[in-house]
């Protein structure tokens, strides 16, 4: 099958590029690359949430829960760092589960405000209780990842490059899982719940359970991204996960567009590169919130379908309508292709 082969070739090329990339960058740029990788996971997890139509304003706080949890497990309980990261992600899921009881009784605008309030409460708890959260100063000297050797490569986590490869592997795996979920009947049900929840309900879908499920999965991955962050920077505090970061995530998602899987990722990558290349080089780093605010406004006013609509426009002009269809809906063309391979 020529199409499948060219797809695989494409992925291999991308993988090779991603692996080679850090060597073309300066040290500080490599650091930025690590943050970018972590942010990609964060925004992709946010997208999963918006799949069911819920726009939460507390998402980055859940990332923080994963960060704080992993930091505390490794620091206070001496748990091996990779394990503490997983536990951190699970803690985020647990917190999300508790939050889902009050939050999912609210719809639309109320859910937005409610999720914002819940996030603020958690941040205030971090600020208020120096024991165990470290108060306003947060947690310092978080244990780094332990170095290890896999034969072809020796991970020395003093180097950003090593952490980048590690984070890249984790994020790639996570993205693959999220992609699989979206393409599965579960993902289809998420879409259904988003667009016509009454109709879905009448077909037997427990809408609230599905919304909660999306929320929990998204929170788990957000928590994982938080854990990755914590063990990279080494210190976290309540301001690491404040409204400003939430606005960045919102901006990436809205500028990129949330109709496709890659939309928010595209938004994140483009804006992060913009931030580095344009803002930092030209010394406009201070203006970052200003630029993001402006981008957000312009995006909502002039390009409400996001950057992904630009990509889709170009893709649709390529020959092979089936490709465009699959990109657009992902559903039946995919099923038809699968059916073809089965018979």
């Amino acid at each position, binding site marked *: 099958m020529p199409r499948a082969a060219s797809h695989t070739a494409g992925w291999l090329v991308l993988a090779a590029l991603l692996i080679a990339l850090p060597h073309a960058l300066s040290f500080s740029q490599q650091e930025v690359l690590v943050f970018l990788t972590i942010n990609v996971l964060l925004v992709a997890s946010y997208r999963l949430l918006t799949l069911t139509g819920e726009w939460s304003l507390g998402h980055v706080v859940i990332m923080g829960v994963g960060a704080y949890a992993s930091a505390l497990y490794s620091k206070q309980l001496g748990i091996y760092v990779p394990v503490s990261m997983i536990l951190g992600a699970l803690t985020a899921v647990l917190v999300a589960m508790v939050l889902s009881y*009050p939050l999912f009784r609210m719809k639309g605008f109320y859910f937005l405000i409610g999720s914002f309030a819940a996030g*603020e*409460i958690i941040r205030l708890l971090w600020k208020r209780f120096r024991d165990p959260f470290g108060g306003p100063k947060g947690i310092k000297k978080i244990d780094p990842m332990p170095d290890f050797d896999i034969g072809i490569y020796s991970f020395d986590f003093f180097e950003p490059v090593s952490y980048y490869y590690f984070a890249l592997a984790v994020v790639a795996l996570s993205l693959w899982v999220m992609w699989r979920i979206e393409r599965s009947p579960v993902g289809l049900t998420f879409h259904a719940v988003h667009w016509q929840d009454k109709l879905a309900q009448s077909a037997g879908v427990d809408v609230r359970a599905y919304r909660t499920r999306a929320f929990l999965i998204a929170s788990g991955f957000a928590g994982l991204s938080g854990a990755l962050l914590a063990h990279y920077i080494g210190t976290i505090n309540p301001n690491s996960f404040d409204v400003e970061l939430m606005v960045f995530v919102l901006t990436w998602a*809205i500028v990129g567009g949330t109709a496709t899987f890659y939309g928010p990722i595209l938004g994140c990558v483009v804006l992060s590169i913009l931030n580095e290349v344009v803002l930092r080089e030209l010394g406009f780093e*201070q*203006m970052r919130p*200003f630029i993001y*605010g402006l981008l957000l*406004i312009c995006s909502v006013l002039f390009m409400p379908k996001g950057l992904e609509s630009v990509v889709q426009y170009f893709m649709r002009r390529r020959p092979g309508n089936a490709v465009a269809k699959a990109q657009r809906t992902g559903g039946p063309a995919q099923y038809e292709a699968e059916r073809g391979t089965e018979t």
Partner: protein
Amino acid sequence: MVELLAQTCLNALYAASYMSLVAVGLVLIFGVMGVINFAHGELFMLGAYVVVSLYADLQISFLFAVAVGLVFVGLVGLGMERALFRPLRTNPLGGLVASIGFLMILQALAVMGFGVRMEHVPPVTQQVIAFSDKVHLAMPRLFVIVAAVVLLTALWAFLTKTRFGWALRASAQDPEAAALQGISINQTSRIAMFIGAGLAGVAGALTAPLVSVNPHMGHSVIVTAFIVIIVGGVGSLEGAVVAAVAYSLVHTFVTTFYDGVIADIVGLSLMLLVLIVKPTGLFGTADRA
């Protein structure tokens, strides 16, 4: 003990005064235009900075600076209506997002214009009214309370006794019917936005000498405003005032006996409780959300 209670009540009254101005402004905008103005806290901040520039830096009369604050921020509100909310009238979520973008812009402008440090505005007078040994009220605070009462009364008169006021209330109740009556949506939106923003701005201007003015002061204001309007009921102006008083009482008391952070947590939890049990709030009317 009585004196402690009395003092706490006075503190709460002061806080309730400027919070009701902010909350009423937010409800007005939401009620008439159907959009949630996330930048409302920054409008408050803008009013404070007007006083910083005119009164603290240029030594212009405080009263005049406050008046300028009201008008200037009201005009900024008009700009927001024209540039952001009107094109996005059919897309309230988009309007909300745009207001978040505008919030970022205002904050960045404040940082660029004034720097991140906190400004201290010298109060107009150091006089204090002493009710007793332990119970006193600073004159500037009394001024805020009086100003709030005056402004809210004026607003009430405007809404109930003038043609424009009726138009606003009609739009809030039923925009389509109002449009059929010949009431222009654009005009009512403009009026609502000017007044709503102006109220936030004047609140910031009035309290500028009493709080630390910095580019991030809007954050706690908007959070409190949300709590107040949710508890009071999103469509209700009276609810906003009542809830502002109730919230300020609770918050001030908890701060006095515990601390400010715990008070914030209590306030937010209260809001969550209301959202769970009765989302339309204490005085909630049919909601536009």
